[in-house]
């Protein structure tokens, strides 16, 4: 794993892969994700080639004729970054085989938000993982369609207020729990998959290294708040995600070819209500008479998921279901 010294050393002597001039909102957590991922790759000696799905990160960093990307970058459409990178990675293998290029340091990194991953892009992502392309897919999960103005996605949590499922007099906003995307990815089996948060950069960077070194598809889902639509102060993204971990809302774990590992085990957990009530997007829910019922449902769910994770870690220890892709 790159040390803090490696990374500081790198940025002192090199251009950042994702550099200044982007127009993401103050307090947005997406640029941290882009920076940490590309810095981890660069400081380990890899040469990242980046793909991005349509979304905030893409529209704010590549406004023609400007670009914030100091590394090769491709955006194609909303739902197809995994397929686009499949093609680039296949081209890379072909051109290396044929001796047309010599550079063997290239690593493909795809960035997408939750809309382009949980929903419209799930097929393209599943296909690319099943085919075993060697790439790292990074989902910056802000739990909704923030680029188009806070609409609900398959990642939006229960009870959250969004413009397409607002908390109203009759309906309490999003009625469903969010999709468990990392489990879906883990279901492909021949894959490295992990969760991360913006409050734990070193956990993310270590997982990034595992993902880069994994010979095949790797996936990291990082909880990255949108301060605008989560209705939280600009400087509180990491603080909020720290609470997400401490309340079991967002456990930190990884999956490697069938083996589960929980990477952070807080000794004492806070109630999930502490996390939820920090976010302005729950204000309307809290005024409803059924708020406590919904919070209780969420608490039961996160407790059960945590217990399940610990059990999976125990029974899969040293028992990979595959050894190669």
């Amino acid at each position, binding site marked *: 794993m790159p040390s803090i010294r490696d990374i500081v050393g790198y940025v002192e002597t090199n251009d950042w892969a994702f550099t200044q001039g982007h127009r993401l909102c103050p307090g947005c957590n997406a640029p941290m994700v882009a920076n940490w991922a590309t810095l981890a790759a660069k400081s380990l000696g890899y040469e990242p080639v980046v793909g991005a799905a349509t979304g905030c990160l893409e529209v704010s960093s590549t406004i023609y004729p400007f670009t914030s990307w*100091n590394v*090769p970058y491709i955006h194609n459409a909303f739902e197809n970054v995994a397929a686009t990178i*499949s093609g680039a*990675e*296949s*081209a890379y293998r072909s051109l290396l085989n044929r001796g047309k*290029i010599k550079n063997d340091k290239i690593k493909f990194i795809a960035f997408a938000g939750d809309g382009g991953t949980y929903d419209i892009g799930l097929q393209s992502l*599943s296909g690319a993982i099943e085919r075993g392309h060697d790439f790292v897919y990074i989902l910056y999960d802000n739990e909704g369609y923030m680029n188009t103005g806070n609409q609900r996605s398959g990642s939006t949590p229960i009870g959250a207020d969004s413009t397409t499922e607002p908390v109203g007099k009759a309906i309490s906003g999003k009625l469903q729990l969010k999709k468990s995307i990392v489990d879906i990815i883990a279901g492909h089996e021949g894959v490295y998959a992990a969760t991360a948060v913006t409050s734990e950069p070193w956990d993310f960077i270590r997982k990034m290294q595992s993902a880069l070194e994994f010979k095949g598809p790797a996936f990291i889902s990082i909880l990255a708040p949108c301060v605008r639509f989560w209705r939280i102060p600009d400087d509180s993204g990491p603080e909020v995600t720290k609470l997400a971990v401490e309340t079991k809302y967002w456990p930190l774990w990884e999956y490697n070819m069938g083996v589960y590992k929980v990477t952070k085990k807080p000794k004492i957990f806070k109630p999930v209500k502490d996390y939820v009530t920090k976010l302005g997007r729950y204000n309307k829910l809290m005024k409803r008479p059924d708020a406590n019922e919904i919070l209780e449902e969420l608490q039961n769910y996160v407790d059960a998921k945590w217990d399940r994770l610990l059990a999976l870690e125990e029974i899969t220890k040293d028992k990979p279901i595959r050894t190669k892709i």
Partner: protein
Amino acid sequence: MPVKLTVTGAAAVAHAMRQINPDVVAAYPITPQTPIVEYYAGFVSDGIVDTVMVPVESEHSAMSAVVGSAASGARTMTATAANGLALMSEIVYIAASYRLPIVMPIVNRALSGPINIHCDHSDAMMVRDSGWIQFFTENHQEAYDFTIMATKLAEKENVLLPVMVNLDGFITSHGVESFEMLDDEVVREFVGSWNPKYSLLNTKNPVTFGPLDLFDYYFEHHRQQEEAMKNAYKELPGVFEEFEKISGRRYDFLDLYKVDDADYIMIVMNSTASTAKYVVDQLREEGHKVGLVKPQVFTPFPKKQFQQVLNGRKGVVVLDRAMSFGKEAPLYSLVKSSLYEVASRPSLGSYIYGLGGRDTTPEMIREAFEDALQGNLSTDEQRYLGLRE
């Protein structure tokens, strides 16, 4: 030495691809395109070519992967038909706007709905404004030849546009007939190697592909695509000439059959032209001055060539294998608008034929010609061949 092969049209196209040996082929199976990629997968599996094959999970991903691959500087091909092309269509536009020289055989098939797997041209017409060059081919020989020429044209530095090579579903793709296959080395030398100026894999000179292109530049970029299309139009005669040198076969924007002294001309694309040529011969024997024009290049539309050949004729009938609901049929409307500027406009008739694979017989073709011969054409009336009213 060139050899005669008696195979399906799909195999003929697959052989052209084998000789080109692209770096990457990404495709999804769809009737009636499937045999092309099946043949190609066989060549890969047997080690006859060293292409990296990407058997994707949908046509949308096929075109997406093809964009990623072509942007990486790899010579890249795919093939599709009908609903596959419809699913791809979002990315079909993007591929053209990124100026990626992709070659894609389209095995023409009716576009749902209702679902139908047989031949018509509604799929190709759906994407006629997507910025791709579009060739149409009558038979195996042409499908093979144009696949090779497409690669040459697409990669011209002043063109850099993707190309569709259309061949008729089942009729050409599954029908067995002979074609002449060039030597592998001859094709390889003709298409040469592909070294693009910009590549996603060049980490020393990083390039951003597909940025956000707002009102301050988008318009200009579309104008550049139009310029590239004009360049394709200018480059095509040279490509035809070079191809003639290696094959002895002379192609042009329009294939002209017995038009020199013809008073009445039929315009039809792809395999139906063969039936129409047979009917032209019959009518000629009966003393009628008739001829046939088969457009080989549909986009860029060879307007000037149409004007030259149609000016001063008595009657022209245009056969479309696709409808444009609420508007004039696609080929007809373009031919008609071309004639606005000619000195002596012929009378015109629009005929829809063969939708969903409906057989088109010599009698039907004759019916359209007879309308022309009897002076019974109406510029504003859409007629149907072989339709039960």
